[in-house]
């Protein structure tokens, strides 16, 4: 029978089919290939194991890192916030007790759990990946079935290396065409969420398909899959291809030798069969897409950056109208205001959505040789200590520092208010993160979700801006060496 990518991965992990048929079927028991752990959603799960006298079944399929609570300054000093420090220490104690590999603050592999997994080559096509964090959907970029789970399920995976799940429905997100300059993966996913809504993906695994997706790098695909959860989807996936294999090859935990060949042979089967059917199809035209930005307090409340703040009257549905009214009040915005007239206080470049090398490079390319708006505070937070090291090797830290941005240590940082990086009441932020919920970045903070290049352009101009709004950068002091023209070639 023809199958979608999601169905193939699912079927390959069924330990035990649920009894019964159709609507009355019990859940399937699925094997979990990789369990990612962090300090926030694990303490109660470890405690549950301890109370029940159960071992952690597969420490060799489990890895932990510290990310949500960790400060991004002074990481060589004890964590100032005592409850954060206790939570981190609890993770360290639990990992030592149950034999779990942990990358702690200060370690070169420490960082946001969803940056660390792919970077180590632990995330691979066709795997099932879970973590007590909704942005686990990130790993779907490799053609893995990757899901966020709650703490009870974290404990369940620790004890059994399985999860009881009912099959999901499938939705194809077809993105055809070519992105224009300055338009990125972030704009694709924000536009998808605005189109299908924050509940549009509920009960579905999304598969991103089409020429625009195939043309994306792995890091860009991760950005898209990362925000699948913001459309309510349980997971998002992209079928693996040469781009995937190229990214994987040589990473510490990538297969080697004969294992690599066997893996590639298997990975090549991981695509939706031509005659398979999706429960729902959604189309998006990449050719006409513009940089996207949110105006409200959920990720579905977005518009093109060239557009204006909508009026509640624009929404037919009473609930959407009420939500828009409330959002405008919280955000301190007037309907009809051009988005590009909105002045921001802070620019945050970071989070599991956009904190990888490409994101940092793209933003650095925009700001190089330009001046930061003097009223803007800009935080640049690499997704992992490894990303920070690589960026420094390329001199990106210098570009950001020369511009006047703060160059921080790795972690979730200002994506969520669990560490010292927070917005003040009423402070407005252009953020490359994933959630613009009320208070998400700090109590009373106001968030506009944007791509890394829009974040960078905004830091230059002080108002929400796209790279195309910028004046040409001044000529570099030293002219680059001219490359010989073809006629001079030997």
């Amino acid at each position, binding site marked *: 029978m023809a199958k979608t990518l999601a169905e193939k991965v699912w079927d390959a992990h069924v330990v035990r089919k649920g009894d019964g048929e159709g609507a009355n079927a019990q859940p399937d028991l699925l094997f979990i290939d990789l369990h990612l752990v962090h300090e926030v959603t694990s303490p109660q799960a470890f405690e549950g194991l301890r109370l029940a006298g159960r071992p952690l079944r597969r420490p060799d399929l489990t890895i932990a890192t510290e990310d949500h609570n960790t400060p991004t300054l002074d990481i060589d000093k004890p964590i100032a916030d005592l409850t954060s420090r206790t939570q981190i220490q*609890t993770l360290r104690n639990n990992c030592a007790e149950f034999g779990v590999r942990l990358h702690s603050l200060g370690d070169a592999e420490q960082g946001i759990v969803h940056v660390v997994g792919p970077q180590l080559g632990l995330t691979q096509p066709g795997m099932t990946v879970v973590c007590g964090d909704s942005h686990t959907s990130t790993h779907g970029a490799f053609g893995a079935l990757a899901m966020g789970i*709650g703490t009870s399920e974290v404990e369940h995976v620790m004890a059994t290396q399985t999860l009881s799940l009912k099959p999901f429905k499938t939705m194809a997100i077809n993105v055809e065409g070519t992105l224009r300059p300055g338009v990125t993966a972030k704009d694709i996913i924000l536009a998808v969420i605005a189109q299908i809504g*924050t509940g549009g993906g509920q009960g579905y695994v999304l598969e991103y398909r089409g020429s625009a997706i195939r043309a994306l790098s792995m890091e860009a695909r991760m950005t898209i899959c990362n925000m699948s959860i913001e459309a309510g989807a349980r997971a998002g996936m992209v079928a693996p291809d040469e781009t995937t294999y190229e990214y994987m090859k040589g990473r510490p935990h990538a297969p080697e030798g004969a294992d690599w060949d066997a893996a590639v042979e298997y990975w090549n089967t991981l695509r939706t069969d031509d005659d398979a059917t999706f429960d729902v199809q959604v189309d998006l035209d990449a050719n006409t897409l513009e940089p996207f930005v949110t105006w409200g307090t959920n990720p579905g409340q977005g518009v093109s950056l060239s557009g204006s703040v909508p009026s509640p009257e624009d929404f037919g549905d009473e609930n959407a109208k009420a939500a828009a009214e409330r959002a405008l009040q919280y955000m301190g915005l007037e309907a009809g205001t051009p988005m590009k007239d909105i002045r921001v206080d802070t620019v945050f470049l970071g989070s599991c959505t956009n904190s990888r090398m490409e994101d940092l490079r793209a933003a650095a390319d925009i700001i190089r040789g330009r001046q930061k708006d003097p009223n803007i505070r800009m935080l640049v937070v690499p997704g992992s200590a490894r990303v920070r090291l690589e960026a420094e090797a390329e001199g990106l830290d210098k570009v950001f520092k020369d511009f006047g941005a703060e160059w921080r240590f790795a972690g979730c940082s200002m994506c*969520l208010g669990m560490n010292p990086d927070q917005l003040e009441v009423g402070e407005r932020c252009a953020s490359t993160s994933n959630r613009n919920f009320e208070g998400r970045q700090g109590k009373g903070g106001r968030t506009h979700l944007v791509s890394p290049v829009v974040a960078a352009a905004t830091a230059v101009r002080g108002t929400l801006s796209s790279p195309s709004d910028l004046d040409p950068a001044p000529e570099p002091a030293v002219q680059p060496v001219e490359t010989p023209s073809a006629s001079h070639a030997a």
Partner: protein
Amino acid sequence: MEKFTKHTGVGVPLRQSNVDTDQIIPAVYLKRITRTGFEDALFSAWRKDPSFILNQEPYTTGSVLVAGPDFGTGSSREHAVWALKDYGFKAVLSSRFADIFRGNSGKQGLLAAQVAQDDIELIWKELENAPGTEVTVDLESKTVVCGPIVAPFEIDDYTRWRLLEGLDDIGLTLQHEADITAYEATRPSFKPKTLPARLS
């Protein structure tokens, strides 16, 4: 887990859609390492506003939350369910729940009952016209009763059975441990292991 068959308690009309888990419990409360004691954290930002529904009598004693669509979106934090339970809620009614929230509720014995939006609107009106009206949520018959309103609700059969029986998930799964061991033996060698650690 405690068995859930039927509950009757004061209904709280929360006329809002997209109540995300950052609103149910802000991240600052997630630093705790215990599984209980989160009642103070529930809707903590909104509760600072005296006009918020949970600051109004008689809703302070509410145990059935009646919310707008897309309840529990966003973060996977199970703390959202713990906070609702610790405050005293036994059931949440909404026309649409975020998947992870619904799953977490089922694990913790909080009933997430999916009620048609038209019925939610009727229940809201009833609760606002007669504050303090009790709502009965009957898991056996899958119905909600509020004053003259009798509405059906949906919940998947497996979760319903587990709630009615008060069954522990891990215990259920470990009955199939032999199947897990058999599956593990078939796992291909090219699939990665985290141990021993390989570093760049």
